[in-house]
């Protein structure tokens, strides 16, 4: 549809149309732009959120750039992004497998089933996993002990001298400094994000069945089918998901806040930048510094998104 053009001259007759957009503009300015601007303003101050508001120009930024905790946090995030990329694979594979099923009815059945874990609120999933990781009552340790994997791990441990798995002691998944990151990475097994699966499936629907049949007749292996037929078609969705995943991993800290609390875990091992920002603002009362960290994070995300847009292209 070509929008109706309203030139400046005819404006007086149509002045009221601006009111259509006005509420949205107000809402967005007040609750999105203004906080962003305010955050940028306060990053130049020593602000404790309350009564201390001293102008200290770039001190917060220079402190942030030299802050080992912050850079450790970025390191953790880099690690998580790398693993999250790997974790995108099960969704893709699942979508492809479902799509390749010969029976449409069972495909639909599976689609429905896959939606079910999605509708469980994220917090519930998070807390159930926290329960899994509980050293005494959690299922993880129970399963490990029951299936005999734990004594095995203790033996391996004593061989390599890790000092993590000790005989007779339940591993404390969320409390032991060495186990924190593996626990976070493993979280969410089997990593089949439902939205991802459905979106990939939608893209894959476009592939005509006849192509598959032709490929079958020509004797092309499954893997080649994957590489030449399916992947190219879902690449755009993969790219979008990749961007969203990166942005999410960079800025999300809710999981860490719930699992690890305000210290960021033992020795601060899980102190991602988002959590560090939250702790600085609401626990240590260094809101100005927190704003500076927020701005740094924002710049990071912006740069990464830009890079992603430039280098990850889709050739249709």
């Amino acid at each position, binding site marked *: 549809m070509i*929008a109706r053009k309203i030139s400046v001259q005819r404006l007086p007759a*149509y002045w009221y149309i601006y009111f259509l957009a006005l509420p949205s503009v107000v809402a*967005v300015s007040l609750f999105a732009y203004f906080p962003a601007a305010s955050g940028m303003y306060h990053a130049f101050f020593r602000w404790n959120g309350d009564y201390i508001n001293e102008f200290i120009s770039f001190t917060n930024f220079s402190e942030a750039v030299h802050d080992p905790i912050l850079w450790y946090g970025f390191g953790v995030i880099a690690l998580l992004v790398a693993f999250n990329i790997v974790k995108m694979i099960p969704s893709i594979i*699942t979508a492809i497998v479902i799509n390749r099923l010969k029976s449409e009815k069972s495909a639909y059945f599976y689609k429905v089933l896959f939606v079910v874990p999605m509708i469980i609120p994220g917090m519930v999933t998070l807390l159930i996993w926290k329960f*899994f990781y509980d050293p005494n009552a959690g299922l993880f340790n129970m399963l490990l002990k029951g299936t005999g994997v734990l004594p095995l791990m203790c033996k391996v441990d004593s061989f390599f001298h890790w000092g993590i798995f000790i005989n007779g002691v339940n591993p404390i998944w969320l409390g032991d400094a060495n186990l924190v990151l593996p626990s976070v990475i493993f979280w969410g097994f089997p990593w089949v994000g439902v939205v991802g699966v459905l979106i990939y499936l939608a893209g894959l629907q476009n592939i005509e069945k006849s192509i598959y049949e032709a490929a079958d007749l020509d004797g092309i292996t499954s893997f080649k089918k994957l590489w030449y037929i399916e992947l190219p078609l879902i690449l755009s969705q993969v790219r979008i998901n990749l961007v969203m995943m990166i942005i999410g991993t960079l*800025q999300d800290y809710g999981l860490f806040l719930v699992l690890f609390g305000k210290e960021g875990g033992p020795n601060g091992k899980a102190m991602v930048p988002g959590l560090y920002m939250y702790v600085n603002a609401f626990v240590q009362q260094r809101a100005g510094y927190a704003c500076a960290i927020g701005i740094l994070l924002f710049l990071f995300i912006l740069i990464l998104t830009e890079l992603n847009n430039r280098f990850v292209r889709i050739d249709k």
Partner: protein
Amino acid sequence: MIAAAVMERPYGERGGRVALASKKLSASEIGKHAFIWLILFFSFFPLYVMLNISFKTNAQFNLNPLNFVFPLHFENWAIAWNLVKDYIFNTVFVAMSAVALTFCFTIPAAFFFARYKAPGSTALWYFFLILMLMPGVANLIPLFMVMKNLHLLNSLFALIILGIAGAQVVQIYILRNFIEEIPKDLFDAAEIDGAGPIRQIINIVIPMSGSIVSTLAILQFIGVWNDFIMPMVLIRDDKLLTLAAGLVKLDGEYVKLWGQMMAGYTISSIPLVLIFVFTMRLFVKGLSSGAVKG
């Protein structure tokens, strides 16, 4: 399922040769089904555990973690309901209000951008578009200050407002694309009949946008349902907490009665389950169409 796979008519045009191929259950088919069932098993395992434990006392759980044990302790559910009901009602109120009100904002705005090209509308459009790129992570503290200055702290209205403001940009973007798809003639005809923009929206846009609106509504509903950082920061009174923040608070107990907590989690999931039961098809359809566009 397997029988159906064998007997189903292929929808390919070629009859004979393909039909032959699909009559047997090939090894690769079994492999695919097995793979999917494996994934499903692991995905559903936490849910199974949740349901399972919700009927047990701590003692029963210690003895028998994974199996169902009788007697089933239904009182866990009663206690959990007491703990969680305020949170659920608060969240339902906040989420539904936010969703309903958001469309009052976004549909007119999307209409404005789709239908008219008035002076300044491009600038305004970029005004919104930039926000899609801006991560909101740095906004937490100033947002708190804004709420404080509006005297909205410790109230559910603050959460509703935040829900409305947060969903604006994405919804306007998608709705604009959608409205642009509607043939121009409909609008022109309505305008000739003397309908103003509001009338046009009510009579043309809304009836046609059923599926996209419900998809967006569900997505926003889920977003508000799951949000916990803002409620945790803004709300002082326990009675006003929303669900996710409330569950975190319950998790802070020292002596954890897992049965009750699991029952609480299950109860917290039920509203979303109900929604999906009714809107399944719409949602899947809307997601596919929206996603392919995006």
